[in-house]
């Protein structure tokens, strides 16, 4: 079975976040921002290619919205081609990674960038459904694949 996207376009990785003096001050509290969320998910590996979601421009910092005060995180991701069969899996890996790495107070929403996928409505519904996500994690084959993707994050 051939790959969905044999020859994806590659993008450059961005630099690591610089540490400022404010970061080292014990008393300053720092809120979550989009760069922090981006750093959490940019290293996730694509299920088909040995490349990260950042390198494939599936996730981008400009498509992440964070509101610390009202506990919401919204991530839009862009599958590389409109009929990508891995889209659900990629969305799931982003969602699971954020579920494990953010405090429980956050409400996490992971959806496909509008207009970039044929079945975006159905996939968005699946990703939003807590029970379906939990059931997917119970599936041993799926969780093995997910762990492999997230391991590099």
């Amino acid at each position, binding site marked *: 079975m051939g790959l969905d996207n044999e020859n994806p376009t590659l993008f450059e990785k961005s630099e690591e976040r610089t*540490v400022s003096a404010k970061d080292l001050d*014990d008393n300053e509290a*720092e809120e979550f921002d989009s760069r922090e969320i981006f750093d959490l998910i940019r290293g996730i590996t694509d299920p088909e290619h040995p490349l990260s979601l950042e390198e494939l421009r599936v996730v981008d910092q400009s498509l992440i919205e964070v509101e610390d005060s009202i506990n919401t995180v919204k991530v839009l991701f862009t599958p590389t081609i409109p009929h990508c069969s891995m889209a659900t899996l990629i969305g799931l890996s982003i969602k699971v990674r954020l579920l*494990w*790495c953010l*405090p429980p107070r956050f409400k996490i929403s992971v959806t496909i960038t509008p207009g970039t996928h044929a079945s975006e409505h159905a996939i968005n519904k699946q990703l939003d459904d807590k029970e379906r996500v939990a059931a997917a994690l119970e599936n041993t084959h799926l969780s*093995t694949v997910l762990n*492999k993707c*997230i391991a590099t994050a």
Partner: protein
Amino acid sequence: MLSFKLSWITTSLSLKGHRKLRQWIDWSLNLLADPLYGKMMTQCFKMLTQSDDGYLNKECFCSVKLLYRQRIFCYVIEPLICKYNTSPESVKENYLISILYQMDGNSYVTLSPYFSKILPLLLQLLSPEEVYVLQSLQTFCNLLESKTPVLEDYLQSFVPKLLNLSQSSKYMNIRIVALQCLYNCCDYSLIKLLPLKRQVISELSKCLDDKKRLVRKEVVRTKSRWLSIDVVNDDD
């Protein structure tokens, strides 16, 4: 100035293995109890573990005997621990700093016969109210990084302390090093780690909401590693 000179002389004697060495070491040990000079004498114990690039080395035709650091360590460690346990508060920390310097400067092989004495001391220090918790933590981290086998049996005792430090310490440096220690724990055998996994994951989840970004980064790193210790890799 006096303590400085004393330290240099003691170090040079120890390099050579001079027969009068014991006397000088005993003097250094006794000076640690002095309220005026004690603090400065701790530098002596640091110097004894370091190799000097300037003057006291083979290039300058010094006589450097084999295993001199280890010999010093074996001689001083027990008196240091004993004095630490029995001294008054004011000088206690001098002994402690000297012990930590000695431990940092020697390898696991030298430390291992004395672990049963050193470990209770280290464990005592791993609580947020202790003053020298950062240095003790860093020493501990180095021990864990080098996969010291003896520590494997004590996992049950220090993991809860590390978890407590990573949540309740006021200083971000301490929280970060405690988390790094927890990260290094994953190098030990699965059988010892699994009983602790659930507790570690649930405590670490509380740390995810730390107010400092650098600490949050460490929590994510540590939690991801603990989550993956029992993942079966399915190579297709």
